[in-house]
């Protein structure tokens, strides 16, 4: 595929982080004047690949050629000099400075007074802004601009440096639909008229379908496919992203407890037409929930599938009692309310953001294991960390859950991610809870730990817990769950029986393609829908 029109060629790129292979002999070509979609789930290696192209990481193996010449990119400055610019997801702008000042920040004044430099920058930005119809005033304070406008400032910065290659990381995640249209139009103009090249890193299938000339799909660090104009379709992309293989070892997963037998309990966790405002904060992947209704029964594992950023975090926080619904109710065990600290105390919660919501990194293993003991009881009584019985429990949990190092006084900060997660799982599941909310519980974990965590979820479900499992790993969901609901743009698209639903049906619902619950392929239960 190397032709005269190649802008960037990456060959056999390998990048390892410890034992994790983030990029495994990835080939990637970027032609002149094309918009190239780079698609993949979280952890598929797309951001790593782009970071290598932007010089942030050095590849362990492989070759990069820019406009035909082999290059070694030792840092962003090297990349910029070769005309490669990155428009990051989190903008690198100082809110209190003006647009022009922000762009002048990285420039060498070459001995000129700053205000001269600034005047030149302003003049050029004005011209560029007009030329591309960006409608950005160089003297505007960045803090007053919308997210979409800030993104255009980042694009202005790339244009200012006359970058030929624009790497855009999830560019639409912060934009309103109108801003998305506008951005895509602009990118189309920049590529078609000026032969600039754009890499669009995303996990949104529909978006790349609309604008990309070609799409490369990464999965688990490998390139699975590059689809061109002839074979580019939603089905093909879903298939490539999810993989065609059957869920591995599904038989052995479900052997431990016959799932159909579990699915008989009474309702424990109920969402009734729940609406939630976006969680917001620093996380950009936030989206309101609309009219979400489902029931998790005792002994059941209920899965939520979906492409990240479709409201999973809001669902997670609402179920854990950390976000209050703006409408609807979340009921615990029929009548109880999940809201407030009593709800938080009642729900076993394995959060997706472990360092923030799961563990206190600067407390010890024992203190983290006994954290729930701190919430209740007589505050003036001896702390659980000072009493022999809870400490024995902690030691027992360390042994049972195989937390390494097996020292209760080790700081959780010093533990690996997998062991940190074991601490959370041990604390939350040790005493067989009635309700479990587990969000991305195996993300970033190695195979052994993942298997262990899944086994624990199955164990508590067998013992009668109602488990809500939010995951972007379809294999995991199909292997563990009794039923799976798919969330898309904050709405539940439908609920399927996990054993009979096809991967294609789930994939289509995740991409927002299917009419909700269209297959209806489940025994005795219709998809539970919002009003």
């Amino acid at each position, binding site marked *: 595929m190397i032709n005269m029109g190649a802008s960037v060629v990456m060959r056999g790129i390998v990048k390892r982080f410890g034992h994790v292979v983030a990029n495994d002999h990835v080939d990637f070509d970027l032609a002149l004047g094309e918009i190239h979609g780079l698609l993949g789930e979280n952890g598929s290696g797309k951001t790593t690949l782009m970071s290598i192209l932007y010089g942030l990481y050095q590849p362990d193996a492989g070759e990069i050629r820019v406009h035909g010449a082999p290059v070694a990119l030792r840092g962003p400055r090297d990349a910029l000099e070769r005309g490669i610019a990155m428009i990051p997801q989190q903008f690198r702008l100082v809110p209190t400075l003006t647009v022009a000042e922000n762009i002048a920040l990285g420039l060498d004044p070459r001995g000129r007074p700053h205000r001269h430099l600034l005047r030149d920058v302003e003049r050029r930005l004005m011209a560029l802004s007009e030329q591309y119809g960006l409608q950005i005033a160089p003297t505007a304070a960045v803090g007053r601009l919308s997210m979409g406008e800030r993104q255009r400032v980042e694009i202005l910065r790339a244009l200012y440096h006359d970058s030929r290659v624009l790497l855009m990381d999830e560019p639409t995640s912060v934009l309103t639909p109108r801003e998305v249209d506008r951005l895509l139009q602009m990118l189309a103009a920049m590529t078609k008229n000026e032969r600039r090249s754009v890499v669009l890193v995303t996990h949104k299938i529909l978006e790349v379908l609309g604008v990309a000339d070609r799409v490369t799909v990464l999965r688990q660090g490998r390139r699975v496919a590059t689809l061109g104009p002839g074979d580019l379709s939603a089905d093909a992309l879903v298939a490539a992203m999810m993989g065609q293989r059957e869920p591995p070892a599904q038989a052995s997963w479900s052997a431990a407890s016959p799932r159909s037998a579990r699915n008989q309990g009474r309702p424990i966790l109920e969402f009734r037409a729940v609406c939630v405002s976006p969680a917001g904060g620093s996380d950009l992947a936030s989206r309101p929930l609309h009219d979400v209704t489902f029931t998790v029964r005792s002994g059941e594992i209920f899965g939520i599938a979906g492409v990240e950023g479709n409201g999973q975090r809001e669902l997670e926080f609402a179920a*854990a009692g*950390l976000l209050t619904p703006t409408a609807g109710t979340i009921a615990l065990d029929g009548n109880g309310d999940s809201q407030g*600290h*009593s709800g*938080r*105390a*009642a729900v076993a*919660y394995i*959060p997706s953001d472990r360092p*923030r*919501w*799961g*563990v*206190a*990194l*600067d*407390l010890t293993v024992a*203190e983290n294991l*006994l*954290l*729930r*003991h*701190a*919430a*209740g*009881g*007589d*505050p*003036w*009584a*001896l*702390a*659980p*960390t*000072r009493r022999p019985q809870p400490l024995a429990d902690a030691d027992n949990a360390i042994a049972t859950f195989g937390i390494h190092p097996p020292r209760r006084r080790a*700081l959780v*900060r*010093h533990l690996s991610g997998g062991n940190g997660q074991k601490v959370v799982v041990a*604390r939350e599941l040790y005493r067989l809870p009635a309700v479990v909310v587990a969000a991305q519980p195996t993300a970033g974990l190695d195979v052994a730990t993942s298997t262990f965590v899944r086994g624990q979820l199955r164990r508590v479900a067998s013992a009668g817990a109602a488990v809500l499992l939010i995951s972007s790993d379809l294999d995991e969901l199909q292997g563990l769950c009794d039923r799976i609901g798919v969330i898309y743009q904050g709405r539940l698209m439908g609920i399927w029986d996990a054993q009979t639903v096809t991967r294609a049906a789930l994939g289509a619902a995740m991409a927002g393609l299917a009419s909700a619950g269209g297959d209806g392929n489940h025994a005795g239960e219709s998809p539970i829908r919002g009003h």
Partner: protein
Amino acid sequence: METTRANLLSEATELRPVRVHAVWRSTGGVRQAVRLAGMIVVPLGTGLLVGSLLMWALGISPLAAFRTMLETVVGSRSGFTDMLLYATPLLLIALGYGLAYRARVWTVGGEGQFHAAAIAVAALVFTLPPTTPRLPGLLLMLAAGSAAGMLWALLPGWLRVSRQVNEVVSTLMLNFVGILAMHWVIRTVFRDPFAGILQTPPFPRVFDLPRLAGTRLHIGLIMALALVPVLLYVMHYSTYGFRIKAIGTNPWASRAVGIRVDRTIIMVFLISGMLAGLAGAVHVLGAAHRLIGDLSPGFGYTAIMVALLARCHPLGAVPSALLLAGLAVGSEGIQVEFGIPTDFVQVFAAVLVLCILAGDTLIWKGRSPS
């Protein structure tokens, strides 16, 4: 905070090569000693060094100056008593600060709470009939002082919890309000008509705090010392202390497991306010015996340094309160002897705290990036 720092220190040692590490572990006592040195002796030594350089720059022999300070404080009975009187409110306020800082509640409001308590006590002193029985009267006054301190702390606590107002700013501002409110109360309500300066008439002798046999010391010192083990238990042994530590380390995770974070933070404000209020009450009733314009030489601010030097530990607060009180009293000695303004000692104390904080930062920097 104290443990975090301590853990950082132990971590820094664990990052050493294996052989050193092994030796290190086998000599726990040495390790403890070195840790202690790193935490206290080094900043103290650096502070002394910088202070000496300052004095040398002023043309005074540092050695002579330090000897004078030492003689002022321990060489005479009255100097020693002054130091203990000075250390009493420092210790009380610093105990509260230590508790708050462990919860990452950065209150600096001891000064305002101290003065609020002084107002409350004076109000009772001048309104209760002189025939009031002594013990109930005193207990009522101490309680009123503590309550006034709590009230003064409740506002910033509420602002922090419900409006996300930074407590450093709100407590600092309330310090000025507290001091000026006391001035206003003296001027308009309780002014001593025969005095040329801003002060109230002396309190009736019946409302003096009981003294320690044959000294000017009052039982406030005993109360402060008795509160040290209480705070030690609360902070390091009780469930409540565990909650505070958890909140200070990760408020989000604490909330997720069902700890009532806001309620606990309000409680922290109230306890620290109560202790500062108690400090104000015992100081007024035991040492000052009246309200006076410069009632506090900045106890509420010096106590910040006491708490930081003690790494927020109640046991550490005792020696560091004595140290800073000794410095304050001793500086009066060198003022008499050498004519250096007592402000000099503030410089010295500030250098001390800077050395502590800088030391911690250096330890932070020594950590492996992860």
